[in-house]
Structure formats: structure tokens, C-alpha cells
């Protein structure tokens, strides 16, 4: 399989992990640097294709989206809403302090 040469540093991997909110230890960072270089190296083979004038396709359906009539219907109860919550309060979902 063809590939472009892509170089990623550990800092770039850490930056992407921060955007994605995935905590990584140093070993994982090191492993991901290599894996992502390989995968992105293959993926980057399309970067050079001279297709700038081709319109991008986000949806394979060439129709307008179905819309919903503006009618309110009951949702779920608070008890149901909180059933799966890892840290429920009496009436809501508890989250840790925002911190710095």
C-alpha cells in the first residue's frame, strides 16, 4: 500500500488527545505516534489528488431532510432520565467542579 511520509510529534498527539478529552500515558502516546503516522501516511495519499474543483459530498442522499411538525409530546420522567446517571443528585446530574 502506498503512503506519504507523515511526521507527528508526541506533543501533537497530546494536543489531539486533549481536544478529544482522552487521557494518555507516555507509553500510549509513543505507540500512537507510530500508529497514527502509518495510518495518516496512507490516508494522506489522497491529499495530492488534483480534485480541488470537485464538490465535496457530506450525504449520499440527494434530497432535502425530513422535517418534524411542531407538536410537543411528553418525554421521559426525571426518574427515567436519571436511571443511568453515574452521579445523580435529587433532581439532576452532578459534575465535578470546572477547575482550572
Amino acid at each position, binding site marked *: *500500500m502506498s503512503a506519504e511520509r507523515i511526521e507527528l510529534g508526541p506533543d501533537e*498527539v497530546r494536543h*489531539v*488527545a486533549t*481536544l*478529544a*478529552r*482522552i*487521557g*494518555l500515558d507516555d507509553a*500510549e502516546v509513543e505507540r*500512537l505516534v507510530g*500508529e*497514527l503516522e*502509518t*495510518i*495518516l501516511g*496512507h*490516508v*494522506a*495519499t*489522497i*491529499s495530492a*489528488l488534483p*480534485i*480541488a474543483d*470537485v*464538490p*465535496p*459530498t*457530506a*450525504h*449520499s*442522499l440527494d*434530497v432535502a*431532510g*425530513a*422535517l*418534524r411538525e411542531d407538536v410537543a409530546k411528553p418525554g*421521559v420522567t426525571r426518574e*427515567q432520565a436519571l*436511571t*443511568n*446517571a*453515574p*452521579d445523580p443528585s435529587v433532581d439532576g*446530574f452532578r*459534575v*465535578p*467542579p*470546572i*477547575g*482550572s
Partner: protein
Amino acid sequence: MAAVDVIGLTAERAAAMLRAGECSSEELAGAYLERIEAFDPALHAYLHVDPEHTLAAARAQDQSGNVGLAGVPIAYKDLLSTKGVPTTAGSKILEGFIPLEDADVVARGNAAGLVSLGKTNLDEFAMGSSTEHSAYGPTRNPWDQTRVPGGSSGGSAAVVAAGLAPWSLGTDTGGSIRQPAAFCGLVGLMPTYGTVSRFGVVAFACSLEQVGPMTLTVRDCALLQQVIAGGSERDATCVGLREPIVLPEPGRLDGVRFGVPWAELEDGVDPGIRERFDSSLKLATELGAELVDVELPYARHGLAAYYVIAPAEASANLSRFDGVRYGLRVDGPDLRSMYEATRSAGFGPEVKRRIMIGTYALSAGYHDAYYVQAQRVRTLIRRDFDAAFLGVDAILLPTAPTTAFPMGARMDDPLAMYANDIFTLPVNLAGIPALSIPNGLVEGLPSGLQIIGNAHTENTLLRFGAAFEQAIGFDPVPPALRGGAA
């Protein structure tokens, strides 16, 4: 009560038995549950089975009289939400999660009277081609337990192949129905995008995936597609069917023009697969069809485009798993550390890889070079197919370039794992339907023939599939299960 012999039992036949009173739904479900208890510990194809629940549902069907498909059991990929029944998507991050609603396809199954046997194993969040990426351990291939069943719908394939369910539902984002169907000797359909509701399907890549049937026969495939296809008010991208699905009868293929993209077959295809594929082409001509060379020049870029678009969408779809409203939470002193600890512990290595790729491809500075460029390739792939379908009724390709590979063989080489989907994922990028049917054995392992059609040509594909099916004469029961031995 006399155990019903369910090995090789098609859903069509099971429904006929129920209607004729030859057995009850409870007996039928009981027979599958017994086999699940006996054989699933080795295969590990189910993630959740609740015999009481299943038998109660079967009894309810018996009481209301078994008409149509009512009372026939089914297995659901654990990516499909089931109200009140755990749904994990194969991930630790959803361990213990209980959906508040059924997925539309499950609701349609319930409305048709289908009885759920349980939830089947999958690669975590459907990301994988071997079911080895399940957080709950891999599933084994009933044809050879040292090999993978394919993926990501590997559990749904294995249960049908092993006689642990008459049929099942899988999902297909890049080949996740067709490739495991091929690896396990089954029929699998990737429907036209927008014909089956995705509501309640734990999302991996929304613009690419559909739910579809995994069955022993082409007719079963049509029957199950009749159940699940149709528009939904809860999925804005689901426009439904243009014409009803009809049950196909096998016949000749006189006057049919099949396109064969020879250039795409030049390398990377196992010789045994190539041999089986060539022999199916010969069959096609014997049945009266004509073979036409077609070119799909951008299909070879499908893998690269797919591994930008799918991870990009996935990276956003999986952001909701943040430890706040459901699922795993690993606490930390502040919000940010809670997020990072939860997602680090909750996601497996493959999911993390794809989130990282997707996040990178959408991030500032790379968005146009990766994401937008991949969408342009997507346009070109669709155009390739559009051009090809001007001259042919369907396109033939092997479903996968290999047969089922040994467990562990590709776990350390993500790109090699991805490459197993080269023949399937261009179909998802184009949003068109494709049917995979068993195409005989290669060294004792099933191979698949993929019949790709233009959008909304499911009936044509099923008719072609039925013709090939009869001509090929494949026995979908693995040798070890034949003659009631297992």
C-alpha cells in the same frame, strides 16, 4: 417436549412450522436457548441472553397466534438499543447502560412478532473487522474456532452460522455485515442508505451506516428486509423504500449485464478467493448473463477517504460518552480530569485510535487537506458507480480479499485490518446497496460474492442473489454441525 432441530433451519421454514402448528414459538426459542447454553461459552457470540425474557416473549406470541413471521426468534447486534435490556456497543464505557427506547428496527421486529434471543458481540462501537476489538472478548468463527468471524457484526454472523439463531441483524458502516457474512457462509445485505431507520443504533459514522439482515438464505434476507425497511419520523435521513421488497425466486440471468472492475482485482486478493470469484463469473455466463469490464478508478482511494470520514464522524459521535448522564465514570478532582480519565478507561485501543484520527482530520489546519478532500473523493467514487450503472445492472466483486483470518493475526497492524474492507467500503461511501452471498469454500472456509447495485435496486440484487445461490448450491451449515453431531 421434543427438541426442535434448528441446525440449518431458515426463518422462512421456522415461520411455516409455527403457522402449521408443528411447533410453538416457545419450543423454538427453547431449542435455540439450549444450544446457546451449550455452545456459546466457546464461541462467545452473545453478550446478553435472558432466557426467561425470551421465553415469555415467545409464549406471548404463541398466545396471540403465529401469523406471518410472528414467533420466529432473532438475534440483535448489541449496537441496537433495546428498551430495558442492556446495550453495550461492545464497550466498557456503556457497561450496564439500559436504553429508554427500542431502536426503530427492534420496534419493527417486535411489531412483526419476532422474539429476541439476545444481543450479539461486536467490535467496540462497530470499529473493526474481526470482533476482536470487543471490550468483552472476541467471538470465534463456527467454521474454525481458531479464526475470527469477521466484523464488526461478528457475533450476529456467528450465531446464525452456529445455529444459535435463525437470523440476525447487523450494521454495516464499511462492510460490517457483508464481510462477516462472507467469513461465516451467510447472506448479508447492506441496504441503500436511507431505507432503514438508524434511530436507536449507537452511532459510529452516521453518513455511512445502515442496519441490515444476516441470514442463511437470500429469501430470508428479503423477508427480514421487509420487516426492517421503511421511513421513520425519528430518523430525518430515512426516506424509506421506493418499492416494496419482494421475495425472490431463483431463475436464469438471461440478458443481465454484470460489471466486473478487473483493475481492482489485480493485487491484494488471495488466490483462492480469486478462483472462487472467477468460477462465479463463469456461472453467471452459464445462467445467461453478460460480463462487462467496468472502471472504478477512485474506488482504490476509498480506503483512504473512508479512514478520514468514518473516524471524523465517529470522533464527534463518541464525544457524548463523557461520564455525565450514563455509562462509565472515572472520577477526578475536576471536570477535565474526569472526562479524560473516563474516556481513557472506557474506550479500547482501536476506538481511541479512530477518535484520534478523526479529531486530527477535523482540527484546524488539517480540516481541508483531510476531511474536505476525503469528501471530494467520495463524490468521485459515487460518480464512478453512477457511470458504471449506465451500462450494467450490477457490479460483481469478492466481498473480502481473504477468508477468515486466524485470531490475533492482524491485531498489531491496524492498516492490514482496515485493508480487509477494500471491496466493501466504497459501497458505503456511495450509499448504494450490496448483497453478499456465500460463494463456496476456500480450503474449508467460506468466501463471499458481493453483488453491488445502484440505489434502491434491492429487489434486483435479491433476484440475482437467488439465482447465484441456487447455482452455487452452498450448504451454510459448518461441517462440525452437520448430521446432528453438535
